[in-house]
Every structure is written in C-alpha cells, then in structure tokens.
C-alpha cells in the first residue's frame, strides 16, 4: 500500500516512535505476524480485533459435561439474561447443532466462525464435540472451526482435532504454578477419580502445557485465555504470558473475573471482587511487551450467535430452525459475495486511515507535547461510528496519542445481569453508563440526546456526534487533532475526569 506523506521532510520521522497500530498499516494490528497466520485470522472475529468489526461468530452448546471445577463457574444453564461463559439456554445434540449452524450461516452470512466452548468442557464430551466438527467440516466447508478447552483432556484428543481441520484452539490457562492454582481450582476428575487440591491442579497444569506444545508442534493456532482474579493470579499472569508465548501460543486474552453472589460461584459468594477497567488494562499492557494481547473479548455465552457483543440466539431456537429450509450450496455462494464486499470495504478503510495516520504523526512536531486521551466509541459493527449513544450496550475504548490510535478494550454498559429484583437500585442507567466511561475524555457516537449530552459534559467527557459513519480509528484520530488544535491536550487531564478514572 502506498502511503501519502503529508508532512514534508519527515519521511523516516513519520514512522519513528510508532506503537502497535500507527503509521499507515494502521488498522492491521497483526501486521507483524507471518503471512500464513494472518491469512488464518483475517476474518476471525475472536482472533483479530479488526475482523470483529465485520465478521460474526457462533457457539453451539453441545458439550455440557465438565471434568474440572473452577471457582468462577457454576453449572447452571438456563438464564437467558446472563452473558457469561458456561451459561446456555438449551443443550443441543450434534445433529441439532449442525442444523443450527447451517441456518445461522445462511441467515447471517458474515458468520465465519463456529466454536464449541461448552457450557462444560468440549473435550470432556469428545464424542459430541468431534461428531459436530466432523459433520460440519463436510457440510459447511467455508466455516472455520474452533474449540475452547480447559486443557485437561487436550493431549489425548489433539490428533483427532487435527484430523477434523480444527486450526484454532483456545486453552484457558489461569496459572502455571500449583500454589496459585489451588486458589482457583478445587478439584479435577482424572482417571476415574476426583482429585482435590494441589495434586489435581498440578495434573491440570501439566496437561495444559503438554497440550499447548502438541498443538504448536502440529501447526495449530493457539490462543490462551486467562481470567484475571485480583489478589489471586494478577501478578502471576505476567509469568503465564511469558511461558505460553515461549511455547508458541500466538495470542493471550486476559479477561476480567465475573463474580456476583447471584451466580452462586465460590468467588461470587465469598466476595472475591473482579478487576477494575484500569487494573485489567494495566495488566494487559504489562503482558503486551512479550505477547500479542487480545482486548476485544466479550466473554460470550456458550450458545452466543452474531457479532461479538450481540446475541441473536433467540432467532435460532430449535423450534425456529426446524421450519427453515436451506440450500447450503446457494447459501455458500451468497456468503462468498458478502465476504468479498466486506473485504473491499475493509481495504478502502485501510487506505483511507493510512492517510489520516501520517497526518496525525505530524502533530507532535508542530505543536507542543500533547498527552494521550482515552475515547469511547459507540458502534454496531462495520468498523464505523454508527450507534446512537442511548442504544449502546457497550463502548469500545481507544487511546489516542500524538502518533497513534490503539484499541484498549471494551466496556459493557450493563455489566452482567444480577437477577430480576436487583436491577432497580437508585442509580439511573445514564449515571451507570457515565461511571462505566470513567477515564475517558470523549465519546464518539452517531447521535446523542440533550440530557446525556449535558451530564457527560458535567462529568468531563466530551460528547461528539460529528464523525458519524466515519471509520472508527480515523474518527478518533480526527477528534484527537481537534482537541489538540483547541489546545486542550497540553494541560494534564481535567480533575473531574481524572478523579473518575
């Protein structure tokens, strides 16, 4: 791609000091990866941050059994209002799952990825999981197949996974030290026995590491998920990140602990808190020196359907898919066309924002030192700012500085349902949203009402609806330039916003 250098005489200077996503190649944060890996993840919403704006995923809940107990998990299945791993509305047989995948693929053509992630452990249900994969690799060859596991049973099924063309595997690794693990896992089921305490954890860790090595040796792309549990494994996750990277994992996803008493989990009942946005970001940044970090995870349910952060599962219940007649050959052709259109749009966005990022790089040399700013973005997908502030259930958080815009994470507005009667506390939805945006100095959306506008400003957050339908990172860069030009970025962050951070 050809870059236009707007600021003359800075040919090499424009590239100097650029972080992960600055300078031309910008939207592609995985640009440094080898070509064959990029080809595998370019349309995988869970493995590529940029892809998640354009492509959808689905999970099928065929795997109810589990072989370990985690302190953040409770095996209940039926709350439709909760969005967290391990929760589903109905468990499917492999045949039902295949039918559902075909129905979703035909109706949501941007769905590129099918994952099996529970609600138990997929590999503790090898028959059901592998049967689903085997059928899908024959009937829907244009869908990528993924599996997510705790790793205990992984070594014994690695070769079967490879035989079914599973080339993305996620292993949840919360520790590499049994002394940390005993505070996370009370027991495992191993060779016909429940093994409690440190002994069980040591077996789990050994199996996870062995499985990781075996997958890497076979060329399978491995992502590692870790749950950040403050006071339990927070510091330790830096070591986990180093170890799994050294063994060949290509992406590390540190997710916040979800713990509420209502969930009935050990952590929830015992009052273990989850991390703040800032703690999560600090740890992700600390690991990022060694490892590619995933920051756009939505911690989906094991039966989620649609774009990340959205759940269209109710459109594809067993009853509804029963009535759908689908010609998959025809659907596949339609999907191919939709994917081609998406790729053309992505290419156009990349070209356009390449120009923006060369011009943002010029700020530093022409103005005084300007500080980095966090901005929140409301989007329904497509990589553009296209959502009304009041409709946003989540915000994407970006950090802009003088040379670069980088994606930081996602914040949900309604943090995980806490049950029917607990929703009506005194704090209004708007006040909650504003608290969720703590640390941000601007919010970009397509439109915003009069009342939230005033309250956001009072909280030190600048609302902005002037970049509607523009590519996100380009709009963030543009707003940063506007703030810089107005001289607002030469002073430290305003006290009102800083206090909230």
């Amino acid at each position, binding site marked *: 791609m050809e870059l236009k250098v707007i600021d003359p005489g800075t040919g090499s200077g424009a590239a100097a000091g650029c972080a992960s996503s600055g300078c031309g190649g910008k939207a592609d944060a995985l640009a440094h990866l080898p070509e064959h890996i990029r080809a595998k993840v370019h349309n995988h919403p869970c493995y590529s941050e940029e892809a998640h704006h354009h492509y959808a995923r689905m999970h099928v809940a065929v795997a*109810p059994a589990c072989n370990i107990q985690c302190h953040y998990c409770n095996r209940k299945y039926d709350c439709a209002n909760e969005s967290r791993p391990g929760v589903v509305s109905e468990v499917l047989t492999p045949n039902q799952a295949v039918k559902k995948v075909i129905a979703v693929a035909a109706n949501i053509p941007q769905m590129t990825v099918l994952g099996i992630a529970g609600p138990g452990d997929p590999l503790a249900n090898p028959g059901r999981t592998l049967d689903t994969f085997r059928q899908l690799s024959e009937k829907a060859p244009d869908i990528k197949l993924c599996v997510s596991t705790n790793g205990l049973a992984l070594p014994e099924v690695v070769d079967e996974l490879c035989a079914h063309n599973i080339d993305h595997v996620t292993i949840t690794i919360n520790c590499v030290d049994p002394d940390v693990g005993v505070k996370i896992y009370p027991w495992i*089921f191993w060779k016909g026995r429940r093994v409690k305490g440190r002994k069980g954890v040591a077996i789990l860790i050994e199996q996870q590491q062995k499985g990781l090595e075996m997958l890497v040796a076979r060329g399978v792309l491995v992502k590692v998920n870790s749950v950040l549990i403050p006071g339990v494994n927070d510091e330790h996750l830096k070591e986990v990140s180093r170890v799994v990277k050294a063994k060949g994992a290509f992406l590390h996803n540190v997710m916040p602990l979800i713990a509420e*008493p209502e969930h009935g989990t050990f952590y929830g009942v015992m009052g273990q808190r989850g991390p703040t946005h800032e703690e999560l970001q600090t740890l992700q940044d600390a690991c990022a020196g060694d490892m590619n970090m995933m920051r756009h995870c939505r911690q989906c349910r094991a039966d989620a359907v649609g774009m990340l952060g959205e759940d269209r599962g109710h459109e594809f219940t067993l009853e509804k898919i029963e009535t759908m007649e689908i010609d998959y050959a025809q659907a596949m052709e339609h999907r191919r066309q939709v994917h081609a259109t998406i790729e053309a749009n992505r290419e156009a966005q990349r070209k356009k924002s390449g120009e923006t990022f060369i011009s943002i790089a010029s700020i530093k040399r022409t103005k005084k030192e300007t500080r980095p700013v966090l901005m929140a973005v409301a989007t329904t997908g497509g990589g553009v700012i296209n959502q009304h502030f009041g409709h946003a259930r989540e915000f994407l958080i970006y950090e802009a500085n003088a040379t670069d815009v980088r994606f930081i994470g996602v914040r949900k507005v309604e943090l995980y349902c806490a049950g029917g009667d607990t929703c009506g506390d005194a704090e209004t939805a708007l006040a909650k949203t504003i608290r969720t945006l703590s640390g941000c100095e601007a919010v970009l959306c397509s439109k915003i009402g009069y009342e939230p506008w005033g309250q956001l400003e009072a909280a030190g957050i600048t609302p902005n609806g002037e970049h509607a339908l523009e590519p996100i990172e380009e709009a963030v860069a543009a707003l940063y330039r506007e703030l810089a030009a107005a001289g607002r970025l030469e002073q430290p962050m305003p006290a009102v916003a800083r206090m909230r951070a």
Partner: protein
Amino acid sequence: MAYQIVEGCVNCWACEPLCPSQAIVAAKPHFLIDAAKCTECEGDHVAPQCAGICPVEGVILDSLGVPLNPPGSLTGIPPARLAAAMAEIQAR
C-alpha cells in the same frame, strides 16, 4: 444397593458415559439411576464414577439417602456462608 439421583441435578451428562453398568437414564426433569442396574461401581472402580464427576452437591444419594457429595464438599463454599448469601439476595 444402588445410588439415586434426586432433584437439583442439572442434566449435564457428565456421569452418563462413565457408568460401567449403563444405569444412568437421561430422564426429565432430571437424570435418574436405574436401581436394578446400579452396582455402586463395585468390581469396576475404586470410587463411584457418577458421584466422582458430578459437579452439583447433594444430588447423588447412597442407598441410605446420604449425599455422596455433601454441601460444601465440591465448591468449597461453607454451607452457612452460602445460606447467608442466598438469604441476602432473597431479601433485596
């Protein structure tokens, strides 16, 4: 001599493939053990398989009606603590 599955079972299937006697039935509203088939794993395993993998406390009982996984034994949550938390949620 037979175990039984009672209310509280979440139908997670974990026990079903492990039973050496094929005594577990995927019934509604919850799984059941066929008492005529259950051997309590005697002669096949040192530890009963269904109770060994079951993630829910108190839902598999021995022939005297005593839970094989009593409250607190699997989650590590002290029963009094769980009761207090549930009472607090109810009171909201």
